[in-house]
């Protein structure tokens, strides 16, 4: 089963971004959650060539909303 290692970089916000393994590749327009924050994916690029089952992806995202602390 492929694993997508994703580098999320946030544009237009002080949020530091994240690196997370996902079971699917990010898609432009998709909403994703990182901790207490929800973002929209605005750009997706291959960061490094795939190796084995691992794919290395960069996604630029923008902040949509911050949730209350759970």
């Amino acid at each position, binding site marked *: *089963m492929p*694993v997508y*290692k994703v*580098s999320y*970089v*946030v*544009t237009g916000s002080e949020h*530091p*971004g*994240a*690196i*997370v*393994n996902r079971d699917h590749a990010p898609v432009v327009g998709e909403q994703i959650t*990182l*901790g207490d924050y929800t973002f929209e994916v605005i750009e997706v690029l291959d*960061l*490094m060539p795939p*190796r*084995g*089952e*691992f794919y*290395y992806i*960069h996604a*630029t995202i923008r902040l949509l909303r911050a949730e209350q602390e*759970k």
Partner: protein
Amino acid sequence: MELTNILQKVELFNGLSEDELGDVASICTEKQLHRGEIITSQGAHGDELYIVTEGFVEIILDDSRKEPHKVVVNLGEGQLIGEMSLIDQGPRSATVRAALEPTIVQVIRRDHFEELCDHNNRIGYIVMRNLASDLSFKLRHRNLSEGSR
């Protein structure tokens, strides 16, 4: 889920056989953390590698000349913490704090890790190659992140 199935989705172990993943699993200890709990402190001595298997952690740099206690990145499922100390045996390069409730990590002690690599050089070679790839990925992420500011 079995620990070997979890480890199979961690880049560090990409290329290991099922038996080898079992050997790695035998030196892992699970640790459950509360939100806000500190895992490692910048400057402290460290001889453990951590793998995030659930939740999120914040990587915090304290550069008092610039910005004290700045979160530089969040790391989620499948990511490594403490890999630099594992390689160079230097002090921890950052403070790491659990950012979600719960956050679960697998802990591998350096001496157990080195013993396993000495015993099975193939594991040592594959893990070291993957460790280099992980550091490269983090550097690329950092470059892109700084370029976006």
